[in-house]
């Protein structure tokens, strides 16, 4: 069950998307999010989705990974859909029964928002799938580097993020182990109401937190032994170079943004 979590997972590869400058990739992702929010009609949205699907195809990441990234947000999707369908009461009435009214506008905006959220998740997972966490945090660090007062806090934050991402699989593995150990001692985690289930988590989280602190101490020591002394004077093995393909992809993204604006003019407005 815990193995399904794919946040922050990285799939090494050599596709064109993998080789883009991480800074550019970060900017492109933000541009894509803006694109999705600019789109006010299904045509505009289609252009935005075409952009992310094209990027996905270029990355060579298997399509089922895209579906996998959507699994954890299923509840959110269902929740938004329900809210939109039942609470928007304008437009042609398609269905009416006692207090339940389903209108065309409600269904249309539900579909619209679902597509938008799916796009958001797929787009941002593509970023983490194709960029190693270190490169990603590096990119953030470097984008902020020109702003001097922010340099230090951003480095610290970036380092913390790197470590957090690095330890996700380790801690997941550990949680599985602790769960198995507690089950072997007769802990019952599946039955009972919500409160009871929440209580059952305490004997899992307490040992997990204790061991995380121990790990943190050891890691800090190991980092010190490897001459870590903050961001000052650090160099990087992987240099970030913007090359032709980065400019090309920036230009392509600009074209898609223009495409969204243009397509919106053609189609009926949803929002």
């Amino acid at each position, binding site marked *: 069950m815990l193995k399904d979590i794919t946040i922050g997972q990285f799939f090494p590869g050599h596709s064109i998307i993998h080789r883009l400058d991480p800074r550019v990739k970060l900017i492109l992702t933000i541009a894509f999010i803006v694109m999705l929010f600019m789109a006010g009609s299904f045509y505009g949205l289609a252009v935005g989705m075409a952009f992310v699907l094209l990027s996905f195809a270029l990355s060579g990441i298997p399509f089922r990974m895209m579906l996998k990234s959507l699994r954890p947000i299923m509840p959110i999707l269902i929740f938004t859909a329900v809210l939109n369908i039942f609470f928007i009461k304008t437009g042609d009435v398609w269905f009416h029964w006692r207090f339940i009214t389903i209108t065309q506008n409600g269904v249309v905006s539900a579909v619209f928002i679902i597509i938008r959220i799916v796009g958001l998740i797929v787009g941002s997972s593509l970023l983490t799938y194709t960029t*190693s966490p270190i490169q990603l945090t590096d990119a953030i660090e470097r984008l902020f580097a020109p702003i001097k007062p922010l340099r230090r806090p951003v480095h610290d934050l970036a380092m913390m993020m790197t470590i957090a991402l*690095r330890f996700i699989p380790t801690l997941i593995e550990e949680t599985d182990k602790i769960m198995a150990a507690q089950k072997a001692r007769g802990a019952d985690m599946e039955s009972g109401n919500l409160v009871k289930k929440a209580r059952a988590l305490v004997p899992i989280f307490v040992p997990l937190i204790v061991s995380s602190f121990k790990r943190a101490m050891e890691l800090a020591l190991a980092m010190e032994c*490897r*001459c870590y002394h903050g961001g000052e004077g650090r160099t*990087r093995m992987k240099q970030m170079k913007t090359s032709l393909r980065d400019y090309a992809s920036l230009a392509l993204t600009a074209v898609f943004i223009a495409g969204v604006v243009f397509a919106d003019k053609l189609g009926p407005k949803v929002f």
Partner: protein
Amino acid sequence: MNTFLSAKNLKFSYINNMEEPPVKTEVLHGISLDIKKGEFVAVLGHNGSGKSTLAKCFNAINTADEGEVFSCGYDASKEENLLPIRQRVGMVFQNPDNQIVATIVEEDVAFALENMGVEPEEIRRRVDEALKTVDMYEYREHAPHKLSGGQKQRVAIAGIIAMKPECVLLDEPTAMLDPKGRAEVMKTVKMLNEEMGVTIVLITHYMDEAAQAERIVVVDSGNIVMDDVPKKIFSQVEKMKSLGLDVPQVTELIWGLRQEGYDLPEDIITEDECFEALLGLLKPDVKE
């Protein structure tokens, strides 16, 4: 200078600030130890005897309360010597999971060099070299959490040797590994010592690993109680037992046989030597 790591009358205490007033526990009670360049020293001692504490004094993680510590000629008590010492004296810990910082093998190996401010091309070159040295080059783009324990520990070693240290302190590097992983790590350690001339200090609870060293130092409750070549150390079976330590299995076997009155040499520490000795006993005629 020939001595490479040296401690003179080193005393060290941990201070527990949780209590009021803070409680001070002396863990090292005046240790004097000289380790020469290129030596392979094993450190033995039961749990809590202060082995790890001693090792941490040598790379300036712990600073001595009394006495002096010199690592590669740098005074370990001086703040400004911290980084030069840590570059020259690397340290590998027990749990490989807790010393790997990055999510990609090669990025982890590069970590120390990045901290030291080495040029990017030079980092690349040294990372590749270090990975080849520990025989993990083909895994350079893998995620560390998918490697076996022995492989992870070799990556951790690569991260240290990329700094080109003159000395590596290993604190029970094989404690969490299976026999295969242990053998891999020991092979790497021996290779570092023999082919690259790196000074090795190996803290271990495995006597067969200690037997591979040139010299064994036995620590008991914060004091050095024995310091000699493995053969001399392990031939004192009773003393070792009184310190709560074992001797290699073969040594124990031969010792038991000697107790029964068999005429066998007392300084047997490897399986081959044991085999020869027993063969000599069982088939005296074959020997000639």
